[in-house]
């Protein structure tokens, strides 16, 4: 499942995209994120499955533009910690 967590508002699209088919629930992204945006648990959109996958925490979904901003400087942007940590290459950002 391609899970788009985030929102679109007047200023743009802010989505963290997680490919749950690639995700193995290793929690590397949870440890890597300095702001607690990521978490791992049962897939709430696939209630009949028992597999644990990564998701963006409910509390952060509506403000990732701001929470993720420190990891996204305007110039010399280093690789994002969550994306760099994911060996499965399951995470991407829309902005």
């Amino acid at each position, binding site marked *: *499942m*391609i*899970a*788009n967590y985030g*929102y*679109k*508002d*007047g200023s743009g*699209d802010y*989505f963290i995209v997680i490919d749950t088919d690639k995700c193995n629930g290793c929690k590397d992204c949870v440890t890597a994120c300095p702001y607690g945006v990521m978490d791992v648990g049962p897939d*709430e*959109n*696939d*209630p*009949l499955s028992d597999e644990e996958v990564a998701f963006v925490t409910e509390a952060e979904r*509506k403000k990732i533009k701001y929470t993720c901003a420190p990891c996204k400087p305007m110039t010399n942007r280093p690789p994002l910690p969550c994306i760099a940590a994911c060996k499965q290459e399951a995470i991407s950002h*829309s902005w």
Partner: protein
Amino acid sequence: MVGKAELWRWTESRWTNPNLDWKGKLITSGVDVGSVSSQAVLLADGELYAYSNMRTGSDSPDSAMKAINWAMEDTGLKLDDITYTVGTGYGRVNVPFSQRAITEIACHARGGNFMYGPSVRTILDMGGQDCKAIHCDERGKVTNFLMNDKCAAGTGRGMEVFADILGVSINDVGDLSLDVDKEPQPVSSTCVVYAKTEATGLLREGWPKNKVLAAYCSAMAHRIMTLLERIGVEEDFAITGGIAKNKGVVTRLEKEVGITIMKTTDYDTQIAGALGAALFAKALVEKGKK
């Protein structure tokens, strides 16, 4: 103001399947407590037996109770007869008699799959306060989704606001908006609050109501299109939720997407979430998950 017509108020409804007897069957239910409307759906052995569709009050547990009681009205069913209940929607954790809460994304995919058949690949739920674009497989399992619940643009609440300021019944908005000789420019703001200001300005300029509605429905369709572009539209394409009943938006969206949107007369499009929840309830009983 005393006696002021509540034009935004859409018709509440309930229905019982006349050809079904629930006795001796497995009864599961789904309750969708949304931001604007609440629905309860009862299934007997997986067949649609009864449903109710009403406005949500300020108290979620109370709204859930009212919805299920209305659905059970005159059927002889009692809460104890229901084996498993799944709650969904904004108030899903506040359904007191439910055994489990499931996201409305999963439920709309499942419900849409039941309503429109296994060929549905894209489901757009236009609810009271958010908009969800969902891709699903032939079993109604979510394969891709996007939810926009930060902004009310392109939602039922926005439409209610417009019905109210224009003094038009919400049920007539779609037809009236299509009754224009030439499609006007859409209102430029996607924000409901600004769009309302813009509409008031247009009315003062002398625009007739139907033209203003056309401009708003068209802006809504466009706004939804930009959301859909993120995940793409795969045929067959169906809409659930209250806005599916608004021809003005649906027709314009069809034009923007270039795909015919599936229609149903068999089901109330607003019950999709609760229907999906009831189907999950049945699946969970069968899976032995209590």
